């Protein structure tokens, strides 16, 4: 199954081209132009990895990240940032973001990050799965 990726950035053109290129690399991509829109989409379609711009009008990157992590803690987030807001990206890492990249970035780097983020998410889910099985087994007295 293709990893589900959500791109959140207020620059519509950026979202458009990045989506096309990521889709071309076998990723299932959705675009959002604000933090609020991203949360709406995620409410209906949970995502594996979110690529999140830090500086946005309205709900900014860090606030959106906080919200995502509280609603869907397993979803991994990669922050996108400019020079001036590296500190915000670091704040984001503290809040549980997987990694960050400076704009403009190499698409291949971004894809690598998305894939390893997805791998981590999968691993986490696997471990949770294992734990559940173990728990069930224990309970049934095996």
């Amino acid at each position, binding site marked *: 199954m293709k990893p589900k990726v959500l791109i959140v950035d207020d620059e519509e053109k*950026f979202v458009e081209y990045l989506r096309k*290129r990521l889709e*071309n690399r076998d990723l299932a991509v959705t675009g959002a132009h604000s933090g609020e829109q991203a949360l709406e989409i995620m409410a209906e379609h949970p995502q594996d990895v979110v690529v999140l711009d830090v500086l946005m*009008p309205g709900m900014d990157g860090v606030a959106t990240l906080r919200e995502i992590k509280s609603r869907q803690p397993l979803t991994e987030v990669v922050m996108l940032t400019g020079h001036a807001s590296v500190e915000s990206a670091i704040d984001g890492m503290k809040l549980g973001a997987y990694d960050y990249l400076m704009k403009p970035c190499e698409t291949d780097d971004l894809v690598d990050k998305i894939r390893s983020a997805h791998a981590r998410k999968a691993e986490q889910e696997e471990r949770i799965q294992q734990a559940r099985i173990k728990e069930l087994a224990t309970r049934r007295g095996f």
Partner: protein
Amino acid sequence: MARTAVEKGVLREPSHTQGYYSALKQKIIVITVLVALIPVPLVAGSFVKYYQTYIRGAVIRELSNLANNRKEAIELFLQERTMLLRTLAYSHSLPSLAEPGRLASIHELLQHQNAGFVDVGIIDSRGRHIAYAGPYDLLGKNYSGSKWFQETIQNGFHVSDTFLGFRNVPHMVIAVKREEGGSFWVLRATVDAANFYQLVGSARTGASGDAFVINRHFDFQVPPRFMEHVRKEPRLLDAPLTATAVTQYDVADKKIFQAVTWLNNGRWLLVVREDSSAEFFSLESAKRIATLVFIFGLLIISATVVLITNKLVQRLEIHEAGTEILHEQLAQTTRLASLGKFAAGVAHEINNPLAIIAESAGWVGELLDMPEEKKKEGQEEEIKTCLIDIKNQVFRCKEITQRLLGFARKYESKLAATDVNGVLAEVIEFLYKGASVRNINIHSDFYDNLPLITSDMSQLQQVFLNLLDNALYALNQKGGGNVTVRTRWEDEGVLVTVSDDGPGVPAAVRDRLFDPFFTTKPVGKGTGLGLSICYGIITKLGGRLWAEYPPEGGAVFKIYLPEAGPEKEVATR
């Protein structure tokens, strides 16, 4: 923390002028010298006064003693002779004395006494000289009309004024009255006044001391040594009858003291005069020494004070010049920091179009690399669209860089006709994007057709940037808000108002708002120089910068810039 954005501080006033320092110097010198020297003449003066009074008292006492002493001696001299005659008169009867040869033998006896009796005679009650012994032929003379005779009858005795006799020797006449058998007669004697002269003369002290006796008509009974010592002042006769009076009068630089006392039942006045300059000489020399010491002290103290003050003011000047340079440097640093900050902002803004270009170009590459079977209809069209997007983003970048260039180029200071609205518009445009990303709206309320004013565009830019940056920082803490920039034409100048609806300035820090190095920003975030430098710049431009705190919250900064600009050409950085 409220209104954290506000960088407070007052840039130093422009350095003090040379006039300020010389005035300061003069003030310090005058005050110090006065304070140091005023007590000296006061102390010296009171000592001199005290000493003078003391010496004067001693001189007066001494002179008055001398005069009293002479008076007693003279009175005794007169009394002795009067008593002698009276004893003679009462120990003889007229007939026994009138016997021939009797008076001559008494005359001889009297001369042996060495009492200065020159002659002796008897006058009867009708004034006739009935008996005489002496060198002159006075027998038969009638004195009944004479004043002395009348006085003798009346008072019982008489002492005459002195007179020069035939041999030009001073004499006086002493007469006593004898009552006998219902009638009377008078015993009269002429006395050589040499003893009297001697008694008076012994009161003449020193080289210029003098003593003389006058009667109430200023006739000399005993003449003075020096005629110029006599002052014919009627008030001299006002001296009290019973006591000795001493007066002081200064002739040239001499201190003259004069004692007067009455003699001979108030008929004669003894005047004793003394030059007491010598007694006062030590005082005079003490005064001279004190004056010298005072002048010497004045010179030393003045020189020291002048030297120290010069040194002090010089150091102050150097120090202030150093401070001035330091502030210049700080201002320059802050200026560069703000420029760097805005450059970073611009770089960030450029990143967005660059990212779009990168993705778009990447996509074109991917489209071209796509294997034939995957290619879709209208792929060429898509590539064209991509290229147009790239071009658009490139122009977007160009716009941003041009804005920055235009901004930086104006960082050249000079006074010129300045459009305040234009400068503000540029600054706002510069900050607008960054602000809107943070949910901050910047509203412009510009006065139409605002006249140009003489000012420095680049410095105004720095001030406006600083104020707006403060406002944005404050609103960012709050999570967004509104900034209003207003211009008005008032009092021949431009009034710029930058107001925000942020948290405002807490009352506790308002006093220090414009102090240098005062900041409420976290450590490392603010230098505390922003408002201080703004204040300095606006002051140098001849305007005013102040803050207002509306009750409904927020902060309002106002700048008034006069149309004419700074009063004189100031060296701009």
